[in-house]
């Protein structure tokens, strides 16, 4: 293993702290945007939570998913915890997918965000409108749920760019020694 100097360790800690402050600032701003005005708006916290889950450790991803989920519940007036459970589950899943199978590419992120936000919108529609058997409930799906889903997918593009910028500036680069690189390769081959 490469031993970090004290200065490197300090920079590492500072950048990590600042990065998380930025993440949570973005989460806060997204929440405020979501609770403003009367128009239909994207659920920005979904792509944001997933974007954060891609590049960070699994526990932090799960916690961020829960926080974002709770904020969605408050903004959208849903049962407290409903979206928290959904988003925590998907943040863990997305983190694992990117750790084991996928590369950090825009196309992978947008496909996963599209799927997850659709499931989130669909579950919301199912549990808060469809099962109550309102007359013409399909109109809610066509006019509200799908619209919000499309807005969310569009917003994911911007969220990805912002997160990319934050990560580029503040994500500490992993330094591998030649020995580490060889070991990592050997471990991967052994696993196969």
């Amino acid at each position, binding site marked *: 293993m490469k031993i970090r100097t004290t200065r490197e360790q300090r920079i590492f800690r500072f950048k990590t702290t600042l990065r998380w402050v930025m993440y949570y600032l973005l989460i806060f701003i997204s929440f405020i945007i979501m*609770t*403003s*005005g*009367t128009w239909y708006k994207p659920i920005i916290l979904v792509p944001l939570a997933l974007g954060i889950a891609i590049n960070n450790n*699994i526990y932090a991803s799960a916690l961020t998913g829960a926080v974002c989920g709770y904020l969605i519940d408050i*903004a959208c007036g849903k049962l407290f915890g409903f979206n*928290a*459970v959904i988003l925590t589950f998907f943040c863990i899943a997305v983190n694992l997918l990117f750790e084991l199978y996928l590369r950090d590419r825009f196309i992978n992120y947008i496909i996963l965000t599209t799927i997850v936000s659709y499931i989130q919108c669909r579950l919301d529609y199912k549990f808060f409108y469809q099962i109550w058997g309102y*007359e013409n409930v399909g109109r809610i799906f066509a006019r509200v749920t799908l619209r919000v889903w499309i807005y969310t997918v569009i917003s994911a593009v911007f969220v990805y760019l912002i997160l990319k910028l934050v990560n580029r500036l503040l994500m500490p680069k992993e330094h591998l020694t030649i020995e580490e690189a060889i070991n990592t390769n050997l471990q991967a081959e052994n696993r196969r």
Partner: protein
Amino acid sequence: MRDFIKSTRFKVLLAFLAFLVGIMVYAVTKGGYSVSGASFINTVTKPFRIASNGISSKMEHTVDKLSNADKYFEENQRLKEKIGELNAQLTDYDAIKAEVEELRKFVTIKETHDDYILSQPCGVISYVTNDPFKSFTIDKGKADGILVNCPVVTAEGLVGITVEVSEHISTVRTILSPDLSVAAVASSSGADQGIIEGSILASENGQTRLIHVPKKNKLKRGDLMITSGSSGLFPKDYPIGTIQNIGFDSNGLSVCADIQPCVDPSRLTSVIVIIDFSGKKEDGDED
């Protein structure tokens, strides 16, 4: 993946998920009162939400003006003629004057209904995100004496009911929602009763529905529907809306009508909560 499932972190994450489900179940049992975590977040974010909502409503007004310029132009012409006919010269009211006027209206509620115990005027902080029935949050809560299921009104008419109450914030479900039913009676006859309940179709036009009216009735377009007070949830004789179109229910056994609410729930800036009134059903009361 198999390694992950057997690992400690999988168990930790599973326990975390179970904990979240537990909180969700706990939230269900609270019967409309916010979980303390939600209450805290609501309190902390309240000033930011007020500020951003102010900015966004101004932006929405500006974009709305630009996108509907033709419509507004026509409307403007029509209104100009009307103004000319009436020789009205009242066009500009500044914000303070409007606010004073609004407060004065609230005072009239108290004057005309002396049995009401009213909250202080409540500002509308924000509308519930993506809610087709225009539920909204107000800046008063449990600390101001507001409880779950308190009627919410303006001087013009009934707006809805409180459904979730935090320490300093409450959520209001409007009369556009299918989850809110109000027993109503026609003010002209005082005999034609029905239930006012929101519907998805009607809410798209900012209207609600009057249902379960007997076939033999004297209802006509333009009649004002008021609360009958029979449920004990709403005070008696409070205006709800006027009848627009009358027809038959889908089963053909009763009459229904579209109701234009006296208050447009999507454009509210302040409301009043009726904390208590004579004839109010308490939680412990039997039906």
